[in-house]
């Protein structure tokens, strides 16, 4: 499981970084989304992986039986914030498109 998830994080991050370095705004926004997936999974897995653990308290159960709530709470916050960044970036992208007439990240077409 660990190896699969680690590879998954790697692939997501690599695709994301590659897109981040592209010149078109849309590529960058997709890249950021992919990177945020990778980072969310990364933060989540720091606590170790638990399959089939109980996420919600039941009476009389041992607390070692539960899934670690802390990374979950952190990631939940991260998901919302990354949504906000994506939305903001999209609007900046649109504004820059309107101002410069193209969708290059530096507002100048011509460079690949």
């Amino acid at each position, binding site marked *: 499981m660990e190896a699969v998830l680690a590879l998954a994080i790697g692939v997501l991050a690599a695709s994301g970084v590659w897109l981040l370095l592209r010149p078109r705004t849309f590529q960058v926004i997709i890249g950021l989304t992919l990177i945020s997936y990778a980072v969310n999974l990364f933060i989540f897995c720091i606590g170790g992986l638990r399959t089939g653990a109980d996420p919600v308290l039941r009476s009389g159960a041992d607390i070692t039986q539960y899934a670690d709530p802390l990374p979950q709470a952190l990631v939940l916050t991260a*998901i919302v914030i990354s949504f906000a960044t994506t939305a903001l970036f999209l609007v900046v992208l649109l504004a820059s498109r309107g101002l410069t007439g193209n969708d290059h990240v530096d507002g100048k077409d011509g460079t690949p």
Partner: protein
Amino acid sequence: MPYDLAALAMLCLPFLASVVVLMVRGRQWATWLMIATAAACLLLAVGIYPAMDGGHALRHVVHWVPSLGLDLVLRVDGFSWLFLMLICGIGLLVGVYARYYMPPDDPLNRFCALLLAFMGSMLGIVMSGNVIQLVFFWELTSIFSFLLIGYWNQGASAREGARMALIVTAGGGLCLFAGMMLLGHIAGSYDLDVILAAGEQVRADALYTPMLVLVLLGALTKSAQFPFHFWLPQAMSAPTPVSAFLHSATMVKAGVFLLLRFWPVLSGTDAWFWLVGGAGLLTLLLGATAAVFQQDLKAVLAYSTISHLGLITMLIGLGSTLGAVAAIFHIVNHATFKASLFMAAGAVDHETGTRDLRRLGGLRHVMPITATLAVIASAAMAGVPLLNGFLSKEMFFAVALTTHRGPAVDMAAAAIAVLASAFSVVYSLRFALGVFFGPARDDYPRQPHEPPRWMRLPIGLLALACVLVGMLPARVIGPPLRAAAYSVLGEATPAFSLAVWHGLTPPLLMSAIALVAGCVVYVVLRGYFAGCETLPLLGRFSGRRIFEWMLTLLTATLPAALEGLFPSRRLQPQLLLIVLAASLAAGMAMWGSSLPLSLHGSGVDPAFALLWLLGGACAIGAATQAKFHRLAALLLTGGAGLVSCISFVWLSAPDLAATQLLVEVVTAIVILLGLRWLPKRISGMAPDSRRARLRRRRDMVIAAGVGLGLATLAYAAMLHPVADSISHFFLERAYTEGGGHNVVNVILVDFRGFDTLGEISVLAIVALTVFALLRRFRPAIESVDAPAQQRLQAAFEASDNGTASVVADYLRIPGLIVQLMAPVIVLFGLHLFLRGHDLPGGGFAAGITVSVALVLLYMARGARWVEVRLRVAPLRWIGAGLLLAVSTGLGSLAFGYPFLTSHSRHAYIPLLGELPLATAMLFDLGVFFVVVGATSLMLVALAHQSLRRPRVLGEPVVDAEGDR
């Protein structure tokens, strides 16, 4: 106890009044409130005098963060009391004066508020019993003095003077802060009493010298000592009442106050003698010389202020106890005569319309009372017998004669003291004789009259004080001066005599020499002085110019050079640098550590592997398609996101999965709405250049490296045994203290509620930013038209005489379904919200669900259709949510608990059964509102773009959205 309260009231009153003054209407109310506040403070100051009886210090502690040793400590002893009297007394007189001086068309609310706030900050400095608190008020005075000096901000010189004063004094304040931190560190406490008792220990410490330099930087900048003196003359562009207040009793006196306050701790070393004494001596000489050559009345006073402050600093620096007493005495004397002189100069300016000494003269004929008062005050400044300046100057001569540093230093100090005094006689004469004597002139810009009575009164009272102190020193100033000296020097307070006549002593002789020499120089060189524009020789090395040069260097030249060091202003190379730097940092951190890269993790579930095979393919697909096939890339990204949702479920995190799934939906919609405005990009239009191919290859290598590194790191992190984390705490307390079974939700709304509050604020800000940016957005012309398919269909229908109606019935059936489904979705959102505390769900998920319902309606039915039927006010949702969240948090304060403490109880409600009712739920409701509002604000703003008309040159902008 009543004394404590009086002190506390004295500190709070000016600040409170300054807020109130801003709200009252009109000049009358504002000025009266200012005068009343100053008078009340003065009365309180007089009232607490008995508390100082017998060398006691009044002390009042308000606990703030006791665990960090941070308390609000009010401490008033004889020395600070003297300052309180000066600040409140001169503050009151300046208030009265300003009421008549300031131009009648100025409402004065801002002026009064600033003056009061400044006064409060000064009171704060002198009453501080904690050094950090002292620095805080110190910086406040810098800020308020900046605003006061720049009060007439339409004038460039006022703005520049204010800026210079701020940079110099606030910069010094930062040094002082560092110095106080060091001092507190050495003494082991930030409490003033502890520090004052730790003198020996402080002076013996290895950090003494750096600490002393830092503290002195603070004090000397504030008191305009060489080489920082240049800001004071520039600050003369302030309104004259401000100058009278700042440069006589307050702002500049804060520096010497600080030096005297810490005199028992810091003085007595060689470093103190040379640094403080040297700065004082140079300033004394420089100020006195420069004052002689000025032509502007206020500039004469400014430089004379510098020189008198130099005198005080020198007295403090010499290190003898009698010097300290003389310094305190001269502080009081200087404050009285300088305040009255500034006010007199203001009166002259007010009446004649000019401050130029060459254009003034003979005013005693038209304003005899002002002339008399000003002559008395300037005689006090010159050190004429029977006035207060004479007494402190005589003390100064006595101290200068005995520096205890060898006969050479004694001789030099005495000679310089006499020389500077002679100069002060010269500029006092220029001020008094030049303005009020000589033939009457009639070429003034205005016809001068005697100023109004209430403008003369403050000058008169101060002049009276000069005379009283000068004639009956022991009676008038004796007891408070002794109390002040005792609270600084303690048992070491020397015996000093306050008498007008001490017999024929060397100091008297020196006074006589200075007076005679001054008069002679004035008579001989009077014409020469009048012809000078600036100080000869030294005038070229003006501190102001050096300051401006340094400012340009720091704010323009250096940043430009630094910017030039970086390869680009463009985003792409910068992103590359960021990625490389981050990878480098991570790589360096990982380098030395031995990662447990053995393969003994838990067994691989083939289904999970298959799932991520799909997820990885989606990610790579998105990466390759993002340039030419945006929709495909978006869908593929969604695929990768979906796979990570499933992983969350798999790995026991249903809350994450639910939220991620919903966010996924909204993100996809948001981007879809934006897609339309991007330019078309068609594959194979332009062949790739060699450079582009190289670039891509390079980026591919970097991306692969990052991916590999992150994978390794993640693998190592997952196999690393988890230390005992705080999670156990959360698991144990979630139900007993948070009242919820869903630990993640309890963490978010209860344990870490403050983080969540920050997060929803971010969300709200982003939504507002999106809204604001889109209001000004105008799409590119080529993407304004309807999509090609729609246009084709419309053209076809038009040619077909309306038999087909695809365009009109576009999305009719999905629209109907969505319309029916919307309430169900909203209900589902509410369900998610209600169960959130005990089961997966919560405010975030619920909020997004509800906004999804709204946006589906927008998409299926169109913005106009929705808005006719449904009134959505996202801004209100956001506002209500934030208010609710904050007031829930504040509610706990009312019950004596810290901010955001929650209370929980399970209650039985008919029909619904037992429900967990925690106040955290109200907080979660706030979260819910904010998320609904923010998400729908963004989505609606984006959706509205299609309704806008393009901007055509020459036509006014038509905003289809209107100004909602």
